[in-house]
């Protein structure tokens, strides 16, 4: 028997997970549908709300869902009876870890597709004029991924995710509390603080530091302005390398934590 790696075993593990957890995936799309439906139905201009959903809410929901999903998917290692059952399945720890990671990566496009499909359907319910794909683009869903935005989004996701995974493993007894604190923390850091600075800071300015630039946002004549200061190429490469290495190191740490887990 191959004790190093078997792709066949990874596929079997993925099959087990999908068959046992399909309700969780269905529920996540259901919750998403409720959020997407509730915002434009609160009154006012549905187009404005849909723009808000696409531009502002999608990244938060995506990061939040991925983190929660990560905690949940590795939860099989935290409850004793489940962990015993799972650890005793004849496959290597790496195959078990990889099968879960593959699922998380696969979930990313599935979730994104579901999100925009829901926005498309609900947009057509609320708007008088047909809400087709080109109008959605006008509303700016592509802008969420425009230019360096998508790279920044991936940086945040792939750095937060293993951090969350490690957190879920170390604080297993308080996973719900930890999940809530982590999500609130993400929201405060990425959205609440920058918006607060813009509203209440004496100079009405906020700063976002990214691997490739610093973005300063400020209010001028009642409108939000942005100033983007790009870094030199070598500094961008160095920052990116630090991000990638930090993410990888966190994934490796999580793997060894799981591999050497005692029940």
């Amino acid at each position, binding site marked *: 028997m191959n004790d190093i790696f078997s792709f066949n075993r990874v596929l079997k593990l993925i099959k*087990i997970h999908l068959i046992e957890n399909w309700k969780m995936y269905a529920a996540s799309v259901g919750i998403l549908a409720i959020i997407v439906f509730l915002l434009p139905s609160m009154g006012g201009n549905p187009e404005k709300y849909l723009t808000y959903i696409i531009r502002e809410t999608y990244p938060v929901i995506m990061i939040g869902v991925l983190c929660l999903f990560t905690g949940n998917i590795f939860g099989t290692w935290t409850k004793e009876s489940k962990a*015993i059952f799972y650890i005793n399945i004849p496959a290597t720890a790496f195959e078990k870890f990889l099968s879960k990671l593959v699922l998380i990566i696969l979930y990313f496009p599935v979730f994104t597709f579901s999100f925009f499909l829901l926005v498309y359907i609900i947009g057509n319910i609320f708007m008088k004029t047909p809400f087709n794909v080109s109008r959605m683009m006008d509303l700016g869903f592509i802008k969420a991924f425009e230019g360096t935005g998508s790279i920044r989004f991936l940086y945040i996701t792939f750095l937060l995710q293993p951090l969350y995974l490690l957190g879920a493993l170390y604080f297993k007894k308080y996973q719900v509390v930890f999940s809530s604190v982590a999500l609130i923390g993400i929201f405060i850091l990425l959205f609440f603080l920058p918006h607060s600075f813009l509203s209440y800071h004496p100079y009405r300015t906020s700063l976002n530091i990214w691997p490739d630039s610093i973005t300063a946002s400020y209010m001028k004549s009642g409108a939000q302005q942005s100033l983007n200061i790009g870094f030199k190429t070598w500094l961008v490469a160095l920052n990116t390398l630090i991000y990638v290495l930090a993410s990888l190191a966190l994934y490796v740490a999580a793997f060894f934590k799981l591999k050497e887990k*005692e*029940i």
Partner: protein
Amino acid sequence: MIQLKSLTFGYTNNYNVINDITLDLYSGKIYGLLGKNGVGKTTLMKLMCGLLFPKSGSIELNGNNPALRKPSSLNNLFYLPEEIHLPAKNPRQLIDLYAPFYPNFNEIQFFNFLTELDVDHHKNLKKLSFGQKKKALIAFALACNTQYIFLDEPTNGLDIPSKISFRSIISRAYDENKVFVISTHQVRDLDSLIDTVLIMNENKVIFNETIERIGEVLKFRSGSVAPENALFSHNDVMGISYLMKNENNIQEKINIETLFNGVIAKPEQIIPLFKK
């Protein structure tokens, strides 16, 4: 064969639950691991399955370290814990998902065991009672036909007819290549099932003898009064049960409960008899 050498383990640095155990467990035997609550039976089983790692000493299953959790080792052992987990699937779906990992899994045997243990073949396992779930997992564990089978308190939650069926299916699943280790504190449940008794006390295995040897060395009686030369006596439903030295070496039927209580209460009088 399972070999434990100077095995020591503790959940904290200043207290060892398992203290310097050296033990060989051979194929073709059903071991009854007996001990009071909290004495370390589950910990010992988890160490043998690689779910815990020793602080010092070693464990080998056919020369392999179970703590490495290699697929070739894992598909040769099955551990049934006291608290069990089963997916929300019916028995057919359970084997579709998990049986492919066990090369010797026998589907006919699995459904026969389920029938014998009176478990519905079509019901969602998650919706079964604790006892029913346990029986389903016992059937799965035995049908995997792994060489090493560790059952931790398998009769907890089982009704009386199921306990009888349990003994019956264990006897049928047994063959000379397998090692069964069954832990329990309900010693009567293992009556006429095990062929070697392991008794744990004070973080050690203090007693390791076959049923034949026990029957040669000790004799078990019950009555209204224990004789003066009884090594140990206790009250039970039969009145007073006691054990004595078997002077004539004719094989006696043993009473595991009396043996267990005697070894725990008077180890200094009983254990030396087996060293002669």
